[in-house]
């Protein structure tokens, strides 16, 4: 054997006959630690999160500056502007701070505990208190007063129903993920997703309008603003249907779970994917809902009531889409993997498309149209009759949420080896740090 020492006489050393293997002793030489698989990826994601956190704070502060300038120029008494800017400044600033803290803590391999929120009932009680107070105040005051003073209650009326749904999800599946993953997912949904949705939906609207022009179909002026302009002819209805039921669902359901997709290889169970998707959808809903609430100006509470279940639509949609992505990325070996994967994505888009498209049912003659055009009253506060239909949708989506979280929780609690779904990330191998399903450096 080349290099083996030999005695002067020429015979080689016989080797030592140790009574026990030498590896049982502590070996003083330095051992090069191998990074566990996926660790580099996790670190890269952590640094990206950290960097985006800084960018996010800078962007949020710049927008805040715009708000201050706008307020100084007399736009401070406008709830519409205040809620829109609140959505686009609070999310980036708070999310940026969290991203920095969590990015650093992940780089330092600090573990994150399972998420914890107050019970869903507590959040529901707060929602009822906030809504009740706002309805009473609406009846007392003809005009609400200083917009800055109304803003906190308007914001909470958008946030609290959404957080109730998130608290319910955490109650059912909280052990599946970490606080770090949950909040970062929520803030991804509240920042990047609406920003890109705004851009993509804007581009799509222009392209569709261009298509109508090429097809020599004239659209009514201002129809691009579908929230305030009513359709006047068939071309308008088709345009709105394309925007509401095709573009918005595809763009929004594509973007909301993207944060989960980015860390999909670190997601350890379908339950975690579902919960993180739910959080992203809730984040998205918060920003969208407060934007709509502001448009009501003195009647903001009317819009808040009508959007009480929007968190279900966005949350469950994103949760199902995230679940779909989980199966597509991590589901090797899972029976009917592709069906589950694409099924989750299709569910999210269909649910959103049907919900949005229902807004146009008011144009249909007959009882459905009559119901949609009816006005309901809470005291003197008017609400759209279509709310009855949307409450029905919300109930159905809540049923889906209860069913899915129940099913995923059962799988989460099944004894080892009996789960019908994969445990998720690549199995741990030599040298890897054990990472408990609940918590851990994730």
């Amino acid at each position, binding site marked *: 054997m080349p290099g083996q020492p030999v005695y002067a006489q020429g015979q080689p050393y016989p080797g030592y006959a140790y009574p026990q*293997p030498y*590896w049982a002793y502590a070996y003083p030489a330095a051992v090069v630690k191998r990074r566990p698989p996926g660790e580099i990826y996790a670190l890269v994601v952590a640094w990206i999160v950290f960097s985006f956190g800084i960018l996010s704070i800078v962007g949020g502060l710049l927008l805040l500056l715009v708000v201050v300038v706008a307020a100084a120029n*007399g*736009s401070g*008494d*406008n709830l*519409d502007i205040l809620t829109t800017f609140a959505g686009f400044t609070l999310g980036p600033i708070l999310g940026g701070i969290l991203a920095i803290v969590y990015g650093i803590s992940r780089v330092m391999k600090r573990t994150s*505990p399972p998420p*914890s*929120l*107050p019970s869903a009932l*507590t959040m529901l009680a*707060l929602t009822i*208190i*906030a809504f009740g107070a*706002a309805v009473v105040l609406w009846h007392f*005051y*003809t*005009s*609400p*007063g*200083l917009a*800055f*003073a*109304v803003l*906190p*209650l308007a914001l*909470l009326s958008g946030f*609290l129903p959404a*957080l109730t749904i998130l608290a319910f999800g*955490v*109650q*059912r*599946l*909280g*052990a*599946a993920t970490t606080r770090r993953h949950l909040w970062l997912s929520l803030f991804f949904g509240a920042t990047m997703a609406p920003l890109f949705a705004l851009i993509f939906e804007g581009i799509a609207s222009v392209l569709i309008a261009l298509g109508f022009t090429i097809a020599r179909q004239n659209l009514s002026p201002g129809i691009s603003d579908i929230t*305030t302009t009513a359709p006047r002819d068939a071309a308008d209805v088709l345009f709105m249907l394309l925007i509401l039921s095709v573009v918005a669902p595809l763009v929004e359901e594509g973007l909301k779970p993207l944060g989960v997709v980015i860390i999909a290889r670190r997601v350890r*169970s379908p339950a975690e994917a579902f919960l993180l998707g739910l959080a992203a959808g809730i984040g998205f809903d918060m920003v969208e809902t407060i934007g709509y609430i502001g448009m*009501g*100006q*003195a*009647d903001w509470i*009317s819009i808040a009531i009508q959007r009480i279940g929007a968190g279900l639509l966005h949350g469950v949609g994103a949760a199902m889409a995230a679940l779909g992505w989980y199966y597509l990325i991590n589901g090797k070996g899972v029976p009917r993997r592709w069906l589950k994967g694409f099924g989750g994505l299709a569910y999210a888009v269909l649910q959103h498309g049907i919900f949005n498209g229902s807004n146009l049912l008011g144009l249909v003659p007959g009882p459905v149209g009559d119901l949609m055009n009816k006005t309901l009253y809470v005291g003197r506060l*008017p609400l759209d009759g279509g709310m009855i239909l949307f409450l029905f949708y919300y109930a159905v989506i809540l049923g889906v949420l209860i069913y899915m979280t129940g099913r995923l929780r059962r799988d*989460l*609690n*099944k*004894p*080892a*080896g*009996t789960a019908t779904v994969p*445990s998720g990330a690549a*199995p*741990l*191998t*030599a040298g890897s740090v054990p*990472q*408990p*399903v609940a918590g851990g450096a994730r």
Partner: protein
Amino acid sequence: MMTPSMTSPAAMPPTVPDSAPPAQPAHPSRFGLFFGIVASALTLAAIVLAVFAPQLTSTPKLQVPAGWQQVYSANPGDTTGVWNDATTYRGCSFPSRGLLIDSEGACEFQPGNGVTLNGGVLIDAKLAPAAEVPASEDAGILLDNSILFIITQQGDYEICRDSCDAPSGDNANFAASPVVATGSTVAWHADAFVPNEIAALYNADQETVAFYANGQFVDQINADISSSPTVVLTTSSSGEALFTHVTIYAASVS
């Protein structure tokens, strides 16, 4: 000699079990408790702030200046004689609910008997809910044919001199925009089933015109106009307005 593997059973990390602890424990952690307390405190604080919001505005609510006289207070539909009718002014009609002004229409208040409003004037006009008119309900008040306040159904307003239309034509001076102020107001009921009220207060002593929506101050401009201004109700170029009740006060009447 057997070289032991680096992944001998003793050195192997425990495998990740398929199962996980059950969902969140019945009692939330300290973070959950903290979150709940903060959320409750914020909710209560937000309610208290909203309760006092009307008192926190920089300008007090609309009040009739002391000593001013009420000149008119009625449903214009019942008192058609003091308003221009459709034969003289385009877009001015009187359904039973009040005074309906069509797109680009305007209707002047003409008290008759040679009465003139001096020293200042306050016009307070109630609108029907927007759902009662087919087009967007945009309401306006034109004072002395020079100061125009228009507010749309969504609560966006413009204060202009003479007209809110942008200059047009080859020789138009685009720098001299007629729009003096723009904005939106939280005081406006954007819901189509809730009625609104607009008001304009011209104070000749201070040479200012202040505008209000539902009694809440919206904006104010300096205005050097006649001390006996004409009062015209109007709408935008694409809107309509149905005025159900109008009240007019003046500093003095001659």
